[in-house]
């Protein structure tokens, strides 16, 4: 076991007494063993990377290749146009419209969703009766396929007779234009995303919270920290890596949203997300370009621009959530304390 825990370079240091004459003294068998220890891990991880190369890297590269051509969906590869597709997309008002919509829907879904998931996970982490029941029921929405969710919510947010408008009418609020008003349509779509993903994130955060040593809470409580203080000063910093993971996956998912806006608008077969493209997200725009307008080259350019955008957002979120989750953002007191402790250690 110990040999797997030490990094590969460490294995060499086992015999650092005889480093210079190493080659001559090792037997064939030993050399095989060393090679085995060094190389085997790569063989273990290789299947993933082979698959990743096949279904991840290759499509990415091929998409870039396609984006350099005039490429009709049906007729296939046309003339080489270089970066022209990218310029065309960057000058397309519908592209920017789709980016605005995507970011708006992303913010409306990711922030409340993660806040809610944190809160729910915290509650589920307390001593509840019938724990498994509560934990499983929170995951239930995640099991429903997005298509079903979109169809049900599309009916719930129906402008003429939908459940939401009927409920609003009960309290004296007139019908709202859930499918025509830009902001309202974003809220409606974000609510589908939240409904589906909150439980998923909750369970992941809960798993992380369960791993927080209980004595940390006890000592914090003894020191006089209230529930809120324990949550912000013990729980959140302790689950930092998980929190970052959840934020990053939510970012990737949120920027790739497609099914919900596509099915929210059944009347436009061309998939433009509302008569005025009120809720056409970037992936929906890409779908329209590729499969309706048949311009595969420009659609590939959109795919790449979206990829870059997601990477950028992912990095920003990574940095932000790292700062927030360590609690260093504001006072920096703890950082100072830790630095002091480190100094003392040394």
């Amino acid at each position: 076991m110990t040999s797997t825990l030490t990094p590969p370079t460490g294995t060499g240091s086992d015999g650092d007494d005889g480093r210079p004459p190493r080659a001559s003294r090792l037997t064939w068998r030993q050399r095989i063993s060393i090679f085995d220890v060094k190389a085997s891990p790569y063989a273990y991880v290789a299947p993933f990377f082979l698959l990743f190369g096949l279904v991840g890297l290759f499509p990415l590269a091929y998409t870039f290749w396609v984006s350099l051509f005039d490429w009709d969906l049906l007729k296939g590869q046309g003339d080489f146009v270089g970066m022209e597709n990218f310029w065309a997309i960057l000058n397309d008002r519908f592209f920017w419209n789709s980016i605005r919509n995507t970011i708006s829907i992303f913010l409306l879904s990711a922030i409340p969703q993660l806040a809610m998931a944190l809160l729910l996970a915290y509650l589920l982490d307390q001593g509840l009766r019938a724990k498994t029941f509560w934990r499983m029921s929170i995951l239930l929405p995640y099991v429903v396929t997005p298509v079903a969710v979109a169809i049900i919510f599309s009916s719930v947010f129906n402008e003429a007779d939908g459940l939401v408008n009927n409920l609003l009418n009960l309290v004296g609020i007139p019908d709202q234009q859930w499918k025509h008003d830009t902001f309202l349509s974003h809220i409606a779509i974000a609510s589908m995303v939240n409904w589906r993903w909150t439980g998923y994130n909750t369970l992941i955060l809960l798993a992380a919270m369960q791993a927080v040593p209980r004595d940390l809470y006890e000592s914090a409580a003894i020191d006089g920290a209230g529930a809120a203080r324990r949550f912000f000063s013990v729980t959140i910093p302790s689950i930092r890596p998980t929190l970052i993971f959840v934020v990053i996956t939510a970012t990737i998912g949120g920027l790739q949203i497609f099914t919900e806006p596509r099915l929210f608008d059944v009347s436009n077969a061309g998939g433009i997300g509302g008569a005025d493209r009120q809720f056409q997200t970037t992936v929906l725009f890409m779908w329209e370009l590729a499969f309706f307008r048949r311009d595969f080259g420009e659609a590939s350019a959109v795919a790449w621009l979206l990829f870059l955008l997601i990477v950028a957002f992912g990095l920003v979120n990574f940095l932000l959530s790292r700062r927030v989750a360590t609690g260093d953002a504001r006072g920096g007191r703890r950082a100072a304390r830790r630095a002091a402790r480190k100094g003392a250690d040394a």
Partner: protein
Amino acid sequence: MKLSRHTKVAAALAGAASVALLASACSSDGGGTDEAASDEPITLTITTFGTFGYDDLYEQYMEENPNITIEATNIDTGGNARTDAFTKIAAGSGLSDIVAIEEGWLGSIMEVSDTFVDLRDFGIEDRSGDWVDWKYAQATDADGRVIGYGTDIGPEGLCYNGALFEEAGLPSDRAEVAELIDGDWEHFFDVGRDYQEATGKAWYDHSGFVWNAMVNQLDEGYYTADGELNVEGNAELQERFELLGSATEDGLSAAQAAWDWNGGKSFVDGTFATFVCPGWMLGVVQGNTEAGGGDATTGWDFADVFPGGAANWGGAFLAVPETSEHQAAAAALADWLTQPEQQVAQFEAAGTFPSTVAAQDELASNPTPNEFFNDAPVGEILAGRSVGVVAQFKGPDDSVIQENVFGPPLQKLDRGEVSTQEAWDEAIVLLNELVG
């Protein structure tokens, strides 16, 4: 170093597993095409859309040909079937043995007509006289290859709600309605204005379908017959747009979301009184009315009249892709499905009006009442409506122009957000951005 032996085995296993994964990913293809029409068991796949009414015919065919198993897929709308077919053509695989192609996107398919087999190799020429001549010609590409067996065509009549007509003091009898509506589009809208004045309700469901009918009726629509784009500066088109626009501005449109109609409820609660109805749409009207909680007593009827004269909307073809492994068997099934006798059965099941002359004659001489449409002899009426129908040339971007160029401005017009002129201008801007 006890670990080493295990790691070696595991590494070998991991390597083998990844090789196996790669191999299985690449081995989906293969197997020759068996052209011989033997008794060997064959599974044929077929993809249709909307209401095709083929289910009983599949059963019958499988009974008559015990070696054939039919696996059918039906996609909800033509638009989604288009995406399905295009994606699979682009991928170069995945098309079923028989693919139903809609007239509206036939223009795009014709650009890659060599994706589909030339049905002359399977004897379609012997049957060329079966169809109305333009239907056969539509499926023939520039090189003379024939890629589709014609199924239905889309002569248009007028669906109207008799109960609502009565409420508004208009005649509700089928013949009288035909007389009342008979005339051009302007007259149709004028009757609508009377109706609207009497009831305060809308006349048609939404502008998009009406616009589609108005365009389809022209000799040349979004493209000239030689395939030139024909929208900007097309006075005839713009004149019709203005006609529709002023009607909509007068409140004649119910601004419905197509293919949804408030879950079908708008067909039941009197939101609109008329609906443009090609044969295949009859099944859609019935299905949505029933989904909305209505039935035959809701009052829908079918009149032998259409504003501006004969018009065609839609119609489909059955094509066999080159990738099919059972081309001969597939062609035989498609051939059988489009025989006059089967077209009559299809009409009875789904209201799709046949494209073969013999089947049309059969329907014309045998007026079966349709219970849902107030016992209207819909077959006889559609046969009458098909006289003078000639399908318009559809260019490669026809469906894009219909859906994404004219669709959005018309929806805004419906909701009163833009004037007719603004809607037209927006359509031209969109045209240049999306198609130009």
